[in-house]
């Protein structure tokens, strides 16, 4: 009897079968890494460097989107399914804004694009923020005290609404995005590191540093962290919960809008349902790093970007999405707190 109880004490993954599963998963992961490593060695260092560059740039974009997921989850424990679509919307809005600010392919690569592009960035980010705040006000706030299922379903619905709006706007086609950034680059060790790559990494990096400073230093950032800990207590301290949550949605959307614009400038194409898989990738990144954890989201984004690039570059790219989603499931099953740990304790 005591023996069976001792077993009961042991959680699922540590039970004998679970241990076998653990072992098999680790072996499988090691096998995949081994195969990948063999291919990397076989293809030589310059190709690897190229893939790495691509992966870091890609990862920077995922990180921007992942931050929105992680902040909203951190504060109201909602998986905001619509967040990925806000990212796409950012791209769509900026492609609409470009001609208004006098930007078209003829100005590509000139120094004259810097200021208008900055304006496009800011306007896009503000519009995205405003849209997200409205969504929160209309769709999520009334459900804050409802059973958990309700806001989750609403978020899925909101994702479809946003996709539906973009579908009506541009249809099922790829939307071309003007190639504005210089196409030049530096050759280092046989790999070309483009101005585009540097642009993506630098812009995303600046945004993330600003965000990190904001959350750790500003009043609003402190209010956010307090709200994430305990809403009721925070309210008693005289902090406006609704404003704090709205601000979180605003900041998340600002980053997503920037991410969408960067994506457009980098890949020069968008499509209305891009946010579905990109959002899921970014969510995977957020979970990978430890949801609720801002540094974690950045790290997770980088890793997901690298894994995507490595798989695309060395293995069959049709399997890339399967791999990412498998990572999502495995992380949730074996390490739900992610790499850097959750800031929000499990209830």
């Amino acid at each position, binding site marked *: *009897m005591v023996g069976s*109880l001792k077993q*009961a*004490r042991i959680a699922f993954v540590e039970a004998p079968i679970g241990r076998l599963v653990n072992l098999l998963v680790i072996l499988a992961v090691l096998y995949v890494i081994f195969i990948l490593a063999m291919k990397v060695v076989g293809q030589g260092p310059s190709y690897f460097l190229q893939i790495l560059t691509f992966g870091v740039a890609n990862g920077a974009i995922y990180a921007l989107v992942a931050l929105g997921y992680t902040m909203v989850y951190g504060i109201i424990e909602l998986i905001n399914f619509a967040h990925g679509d806000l990212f796409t919307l950012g791209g769509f809005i900026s492609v609409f804004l470009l001609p208004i600010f006098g930007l078209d392919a003829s100005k590509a690569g000139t120094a004259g694009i810097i200021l208008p592009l900055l304006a496009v960035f800011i306007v896009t980010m503000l519009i995205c923020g405003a849209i997200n705040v409205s969504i929160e006000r209309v769709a999520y706030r009334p459900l804050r005290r409802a059973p958990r299922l309700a806001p989750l379903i609403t978020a899925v619905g909101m994702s479809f609404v946003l996709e539906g709006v973009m579908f009506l706007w541009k249809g099922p086609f790829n939307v071309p995005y003007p190639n504005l950034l210089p196409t030049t680059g530096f050759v280092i060790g046989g790999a070309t590191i483009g101005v585009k790559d540097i642009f993506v990494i630098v812009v995303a990096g600046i945004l993330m540093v600003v965000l990190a400073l904001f959350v750790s230093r500003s009043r609003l950032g402190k209010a956010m962290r307090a709200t994430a800990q305990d809403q009721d207590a925070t309210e008693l301290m005289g902090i406006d919960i609704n404003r704090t949550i709205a601000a979180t949605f605003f900041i998340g959307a600002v980053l997503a809008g920037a991410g969408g614009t960067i994506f457009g400038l980098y890949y020069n194409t968008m499509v209305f349902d891009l946010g579905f898989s990109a959002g899921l990738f970014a969510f995977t990144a957020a979970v990978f790093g430890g949801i609720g954890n801002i540094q974690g989201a950045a790290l997770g984004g980088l890793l997901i970007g690298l894994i995507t690039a490595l798989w695309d570059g060395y293995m069959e790219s049709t399997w890339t999405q399967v791999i990412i989603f498998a990572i999502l499931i495995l992380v949730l099953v074996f390490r739900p707190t992610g790499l850097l740990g959750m800031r929000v304790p499990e209830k």
Partner: protein
Amino acid sequence: MTDRGAAPPGAQAGDGAILRIDHVTKRFGGLVAVDDVTFDVKKGEIFALIGPNGAGKTTLFNGITGIFPPTAGRIVFQGREITGAKPHQVAAFGIARTFQNIRLFEYMSSLDNVRLGQHCRMHAKLWDSLFKTPAEHREEQRVTDRAMELLQFVGIEQYTHIYARNLPYGSQRRLEIARALATNPALLLLDEPAAGFTPQEKVELMGLVHKIVDQGVTVFLIEHDMKVVMGVSRRIVVLDHGEKIAEGTPEQVRRDQRVIEAYLGTQH
């Protein structure tokens, strides 16, 4: 409460202790909520755990019932170690509980709340439920009868078909006790059962607790109200800041210097 059915498996008299808390410690991060606490609850008694707010009383209950397993130490129930067992296993072993902030199934009727309490004493398998086999039918009947009996026992039979959330406050506390009794426990843990009660209701509650003990169920309660505790229990353990500071009869505890300090120091 005529037929309590078979005693839970593994029931044994032993040395008279039904529950043994053996050097139990619970830490949350750096905070020590329960610090190396040891005591016994004897079979058939009404045992009380008291202490000021934040003394670690509910944490200890959560440790016993497997909601937050202790960091160190052992919990022995009826001669068998249950440290770290899952909450539903603990219930199946014969420990039932109520909650400080009433946790009823608000959108289930009182009847269904009590029937749910008998979940772990039922045998219907998926097959029986799917096809409503005669055995399942009989069991449902039995469970319903027993539930009605328990509602009557705690005195809220008039609310049988009312949603739990719509019951008056005092009846909700009683319903929680009925639901806990439905699991057919040998030990009943009551977490501040008299919280928010009027003096009249408190007297009635003490009567109910005595009735429960008369049925052969050991009662282990946490209480804030010293009057209730002194009136109902023979033995008391006092916690303060997670440490046991006194143990004994109500008279002994009342005279204990540390207890007086703990209460006067924090409460008044």
